[in-house]
């Protein structure tokens, strides 16, 4: 509840009266006219949902142009939610993320690999995830697979300490595959429940760096055929349409089981994940809502859509 409040206040903070404008536009009218549709378009586009998806959505709305009822804006919101979901169609079900089972996977060691472009929040997210596993009574080991960026393993080490997790690292510049090899062996030897592997941020366009990820993956698979059990792509909500390219490339090259959408405590809405869900079918599993260890929440499609449209009192 508190987190939703935080999400909502972030999402709505600077929505300077667009909903107010919709309200104005529909007052006394019985149909969804172009003016209202324009205002809706603005909300959707500025949420980074992406032109194609927005056009599709508006087309559907045009078809259902008649609205009725007392509170038109509430109606519109309702219609929007329905239509958005039908645009996403069969992906909606996939998007349901079951938190309880994520943190109680029933496999040991449960191996999670975290990937993404530079600066999206991978390391922080690992700290938060480790903390949640610890709260579920699981033992965790964290591998410092980012041997490239200055200070990366020092940063991760602090998160390992904060969450009470074991930590495996090599010196700067070492082969990340070797780190992962050691970490996996340690996880097995020490009978740890969970291994979370950090990786260096890399742009999805860098062929050699993407190859390196594949190699890290192969190291895992060699030791545990099912590993990694989860490969999470961390996307920054502030990023625009490029997130789609990122999701596509990371999926094609390392395979993805889910997305974590960070920095939703800001004013960016991260709507592009809806397009990713629609086009690529990759579910969002968690959202990041701050820099603190507790600031992680399970993704909920309804809440997310509502937050895009929720009324706000601030200007």
């Amino acid at each position: 509840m508190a987190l939703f409040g935080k999400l909502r206040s972030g999402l709505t903070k600077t929505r300077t009266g667009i909903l107010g404008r919709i309200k104005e536009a529909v007052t006394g009218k019985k149909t969804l006219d172009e003016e209202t549709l324009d205002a809706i378009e603005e909300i959707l586009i500025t949420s980074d949902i992406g032109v194609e998806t927005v056009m599709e959505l508006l087309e559907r709305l045009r078809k259902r142009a008649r609205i009725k009822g007392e509170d038109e804006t509430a109606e519109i919101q309702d219609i929007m939610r329905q239509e958005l979901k039908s645009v996403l169609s069969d992906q909606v079900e996939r998007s349901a993320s079951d938190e309880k089972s994520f943190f109680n996977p029933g496999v040991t060691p449960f191996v999670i690999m975290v990937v993404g472009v530079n600066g999206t929040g991978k390391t922080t997210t690992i700290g938060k995830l480790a903390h949640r596993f610890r709260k579920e009574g699981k033992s965790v080991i964290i591998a410092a697979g980012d041997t490239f960026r200055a200070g990366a393993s020092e940063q991760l080490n602090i998160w390992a300490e904060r969450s009470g997790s074991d930590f495996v690292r090599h010196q700067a510049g070492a082969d990340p595959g070797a780190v992962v090899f050691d970490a996996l062996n340690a996880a097995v030897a020490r009978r740890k429940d969970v291994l979370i592997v950090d990786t260096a941020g890399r742009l999805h366009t860098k062929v050699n760096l993407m190859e390196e990820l594949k190699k890290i993956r192969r190291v895992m698979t060699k030791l545990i055929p099912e590993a990694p059990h989860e490969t999470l792509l961390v996307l920054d909500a502030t990023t625009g349409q490029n997130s789609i390219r990122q999701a596509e490339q990371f999926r094609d090259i390392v395979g993805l089981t889910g997305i974590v959408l960070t920095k939703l405590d800001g004013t960016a809405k991260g709507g592009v994940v809806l397009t990713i869900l629609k086009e690529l079918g990759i579910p969002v599993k968690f959202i990041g809502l701050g820099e603190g260890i507790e600031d992680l929440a399970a993704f909920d499609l309804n809440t997310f859509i509502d937050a895009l449209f929720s009324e706000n009192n601030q200007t």
Partner: protein
Amino acid sequence: MFEDLTRKLDHVLKKIKGQGKLSEKNIADSLREVRKVLLEADVNYKVAKEFVKSVQEKSLGQAVLKSITPGQQIVKIIYDELTRLMGQSTASLRFANIPPTIFMATGLQGSGKTTFVGKLALYLRGQKHSPLMVAADIYRPAAIDQLKTIGKQLNIPVFSEDGKNPIQICWDSIQQARQNGNDVVIFDTAGRLHIDENMMKELSEIKEKTKPHNIFFVADGMTGQDAVKAATEFNNWLAYDGVVLTKMDGDARGGAALSIKAVTGKPIMFVGMGEKFNTLEQFHPDRMASRILGMGDVISLVEKAQIAVSEEESRRMEEAIRKKRLTFDDFLQQLRQIKKMGPLEQIIGMIPGLGASPLGKANVDEKALVKVEAIIQSMTREERRNPRLLNGNRKRRIARGSGTTVQDVNRLISQFNQMQKLMKRFSKGGKRSMRGVLGGNYPF
């Protein structure tokens, strides 16, 4: 794609023309395509709207309406207008009369501030300055370690203090710079959200106390619609001097550049082109305009190509394109040219339509080039001219001769075929305009 946009516009406008008059309303309809391109490039909704309106007004001139190629005319207007908007005010660094000159990097979390601080320090040292980097991010875990490590790598001193607040740290660093004779001080501040009032207040207090000569807003080049809010808020708090756009070595179209410039009027001063510290570049509004329009960074490519490719070589290429037939000799020659031009990833990213193609990916590995050269050199003259000759026997011989495998040879042949297809595409649809843009020096 730029080509696409031109074609779409031409198509729409011709249709309209066929029906009668080209009117204001008709142009507005056709400009919807332009708006779409801008939005897909992450230009802010409102900024795109305004921009399209201004293009529409300019397009109403008679010259456009009467032109046989109104689409091209409009695209030119768009390109010029984008370039003008993004590059108006001059972007030069301010230096203090009495050193040290103070620089300050600010921005959202993970935007690339610390890396930029390293890059700027390296750049200024290259200009014979003596920089001191200041670790003013006391919040993010190991942020100070990060800067210290960078300092060691670059052999540039780093100032940090335990148990002090960022305002004090920045202040003290200036005293230290004076003592040690550093004429440049660069603050690395913590990432923060523009809506976090306490944290924003901290920045404005640092500004008050130290009066930096250059404050930068460091923005991730991949930023979406939110760019305008963050850029505006930071500007409200700090009235910064310039913008740095990072992570432009990827394939983001970079509409944020236009958005930020449009809402703040602040010049974009630098572009970050990689994680390494020698990848700081000047901002070129014209290149950015073509990138936003999806046209690839043709202009920088031309510049590089012009340096590397001799007249005669490029004539041969043109010839090949005209004949629509490619030989392995051409292929080898191209690879050598490419090698002369510099880091491959960068070059390939600049070529319209190539960045995302399998070819773009296949060729990036520089070591693979050596292999490719060896394979082609093991072919006979005939085989190079007529790749269809390459049967199993010949492939095996070539593989042996070049110390590679038959798979390597096959891979090269399939890349070759792809390039040939690509060339056909260029020479069919876009030859006229490609050559127009490139002045006939296009290496492919």
